[in-house]
């Protein structure tokens, strides 16, 4: 198990959400759960990741950077329990939880 903490910031972030939190995904092999909660972080987003696959810090950073670039959110605490999901599954779950938070589903 490895714990990864990341903090990200985008210019003029989107902080309008229709829910306080959202959970997507299940902790099973090749899958993960993503819990996004609104939190006053001065416009930043914080990612707290627990992953069963050690040594993929760079990949996590790339996936999170991609998510931040696409969605440009702010004031979010994102907690992740990962059971060795592939980067595309991680991106998908982040998007699902985010869409739900925006009231899309």
């Amino acid at each position, binding site marked *: *198990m490895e714990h990864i903490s990341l903090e990200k910031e985008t210019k003029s972030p989107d902080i309008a959400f229709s829910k306080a939190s959202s959970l997507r995904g299940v*902790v099973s092999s090749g899958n993960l759960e993503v*819990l996004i*909660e609104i939190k006053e972080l001065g416009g930043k987003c914080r990612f707290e990741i627990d992953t069963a696959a050690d040594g993929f810090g760079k990949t996590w950073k790339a996936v999170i950077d991609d998510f931040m670039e696409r969605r440009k959110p702010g004031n979010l605490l994102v*907690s992740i329990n990962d*059971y060795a999901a592939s980067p595309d599954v991680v991106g998908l779950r982040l998007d699902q939880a985010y869409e739900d938070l925006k009231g899309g589903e």
Partner: protein
Amino acid sequence: MKLKIGKSYYEATARQRIACILDNGTFKEILPPQEKKISPHLEMFNIPVAFDDGVVVGEGQIDGKPVSILAQEGKFMGGAFGEVHSAKITGLLKRSLRTKPAAVVCLWDSGGVRLQEANAGEIGVTEIIRSIFDLRAVNIPVIGVVGGSCGCFGGAGIISACCDVLLCSEEARIGVSGPEVIETTMGVDAFDSRDKALVWRTTGGKNRYLFGFVKTLVENTPDAFRAEIIKEMKEPCGLALEQIEQKHAALKKRLEDFSGLGDALEIWAKMGFEKPEEIPGMSEKELAEEFKRVSGGIIC
């Protein structure tokens, strides 16, 4: 978070199952994932935790009536009973003694006790069984549903037998020792766990239904399970002495009728089915009609 693509109860997550079975928007979760009541044991084993410890518990409405509901997530640790997981279920059941809902609906999906926290899990299973009987003693119906990928094995298999009624799909499997466990201890000649047809006709929903262990065989969709739960809430089964005696008589007769027989096919033939080999291919409705014709149905 309702199901959009497909309509399979088997494929749905615990949260999707609850959303589909309750009346729209009535679910109030107790100890939701935001509270992060995680397993205190799994970290020691280098295993990822889940924020809800693999079980969703709470209250809502079915057909306008208040219910307590729980759903195990079979995809996390095989839906197994850990310390927090069991405590959440026991807590809900004990709370129901006080809130007196129209029914307690239990969506079981579990391989049994979580090996990494086995002592706590075993105690949890006994506490759950005790709580179920406490509810039944005051006539609060406990409705069990089995239709997930883990079915109900080990402690979960025993718990499933303690409910007032059990509803399951053909896909559900129910037992105490799982196929691999039997093969490991008794040998491949006794039970070949790789023979899926054998596994399903022994532990699968249809055989459990024909044995009277399961009250109704339900189509594998959340809507079908919801409809059947509503039906059960209207005519609760009860736990009268007369019913228990009936059940004991049926169990004794089963032992006399079927002892010495091996495969389920032989048992089905003895039950009176002319073409037992056709049972696995029958729909739920066809089997119910055929069963009624040959045996007059089952005892509740």
